[in-house]
């Protein structure tokens, strides 16, 4: 087997192993980064929703208290404010969603659907759990969701949600007496669920992965060609020439043209040594002839 073939087989083997390991590590890293990015987006959105809730509770609600005596203003409800803020956001980012999914909500639009119900049930069964992170398939592709429990931690929530008699009359006028009552202090009544699409970040990570692999392969190919050329011109060609001269000398053609290699590397030293050996052989043969 020729030296260049041996060399190339070893090189390709190393390349294949290196590429596989690099692909495995980078794909895992990119996927993790993409998921982390999506999760980070989800957390930012969750915090934005919480900020909207706090702002509404602390600043908007007191301003609307008098108005509420005449007509119920959903704008004073933190959950309503957070949802409306997100609905506005969704005009530009349609695949993002936020819902205060509640088992027994006052506003019917907050009622849980099947998969949200499962999340709320999990949170109710594990009250110590701060959040649930998961992925699910949607009509527009894979989405990551982040869910946090809605727990009744303040007695201030109870006037509107304990009994019909305690609730503001204007609220009953708007939503009726059937829903949103019977909540208890410290009970988990629902979950704040932020859903963020993964399609785009995943596609971006896949594109990055492809570019990385193609770039790595291109670098390998460039190195492969370069090394082959270097191997041929620096090692294989001079050695082949030396072998041809050695063959002719061994067959008795002592006048065969010499072979000289410029430089001070090992091949040049070998060529020099060979030439000295041939000169010695020619003189020895001449002395034998005399």
């Amino acid at each position, binding site marked *: 087997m020729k030296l260049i073939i041996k060399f190339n087989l070893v090189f390709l083997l190393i390349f294949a192993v290196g590429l596989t390991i690099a692909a495995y590590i980078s794909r895992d890293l990119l996927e993790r980064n993409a998921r982390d990015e999506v999760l980070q987006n989800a957390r930012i959105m969750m915090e934005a929703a919480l900020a909207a809730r706090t702002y509404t509770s602390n600043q908007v609600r007191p*301003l609307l208290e*008098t*108005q509420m*005596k*005449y*007509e119920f203003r959903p704008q004073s409800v933190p959950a309503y404010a957070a949802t409306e803020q997100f609905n506005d956001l969704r005009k530009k980012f349609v695949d993002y969603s936020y819902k205060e999914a509640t088992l027994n909500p006052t506003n019917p639009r907050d009622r849980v659907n099947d998969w949200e119900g499962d999340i709320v049930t999990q949170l109710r069964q594990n009250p110590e759990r701060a959040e649930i992170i998961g992925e699910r398939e949607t009509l527009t592709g894979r989405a990551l969701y982040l869910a946090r429990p809605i727990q009744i931690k303040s007695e201030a929530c109870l006037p509107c949600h304990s009994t019909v008699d305690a609730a503001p*009359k*204007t609220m009953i*006028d708007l939503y009726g007496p059937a829903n949103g009552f019977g909540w208890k202090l410290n009970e988990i009544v629902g979950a704040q669920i932020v859903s963020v699409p993964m399609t785009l970040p995943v596609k971006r990570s896949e594109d990055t992965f492809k570019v990385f692999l193609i770039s790595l392969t291109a670098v390998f190919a460039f190195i492969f060609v370069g090394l082959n050329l270097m191997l041929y011109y620096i090692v294989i060609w001079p050695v082949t020439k030396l072998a041809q001269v050695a063959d002719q000398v061994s067959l008795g053609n002592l006048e065969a043209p010499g072979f000289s290699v410029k430089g001070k590397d090992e091949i040049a030293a070998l060529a020099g040594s060979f030439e000295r050996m041939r000169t010695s052989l020619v003189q020895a043969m001449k002395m034998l002839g005399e």
Partner: protein
Amino acid sequence: MLGRPGRLEFAALLICVSASAFGQAVGMLTVADGGVVLVRGSTTYTAGQGVALQNGDMLALGPKGQVQIEFEDGAILNLTRGSRAWLLGPQSPGGEIGVALQPGWVKFTWTKAAKGRPYRYIMPLASLSAARATGVLRIGESSAEAFIESGAARLVELSRTGSPAAGRDVKGGEFAVRSAAQALAVSPRPSAEFIKAMPGYFRDDLPVFISRARTAKSEPTREHEATYAEVEPWLKAPTSIRKHLVERFRSRAKDPQFRGKLIENLAAHPEWDRILFPEKYKEGTEKAEKAQTR
């Protein structure tokens, strides 16, 4: 029961209370939008923001105008949609402070620093007594509606002549209606029609402007002697309210136009007959005196 001397002393006390109350600033006009007409004594003024108000002042505003009166004791009264107010002052020594009101919309409230003196808002068919309460009144020609936002109030039915009849306590969140065709009725919620018709800003707390208005204190601008039209609603008000107006506007009866209108509408205020036609009563008095002499 008080004897004749006792009654005279009580009347003298009331006169003293009234005299001390009149002429003294009891509040300030802190909002005066859309032109405000002030009748003080028998003279008409135009008033703007920062004008100090006295007991006895009568305020009238245009249909799109708005007036806010902030009293020295912390009570606040906002009038709009053509309503009129007449500051009657204390109804008895240390008693309720009376404010007579004419058709329009009124919101009353109080500041946290209020002394909590009771006010009595007298409408054509009902009067509402409240201290440290907030509410909205819709006053019609022959109806009165009251929604108590917070606190508590007592609503008393009034007859056409202003005589009090049955009363009822109304608590925060309740709505009371009294009309010529309906006795006083209280419901747990205001009607949708009432809420829809109510001025939008009444849904919010009334802002307090008195400190700002004090820095921009102003005097009312004298316009002319009061015309009949300017005081007509009060001259035709229930007897219990208008009883002192004869003395107040006696001098105006000399004005031919005012006199003409008084005569024209004499049926609505017959007490003016004695002022307008004293000769009729002079004959009666002389006969009585002669009879006594005999």
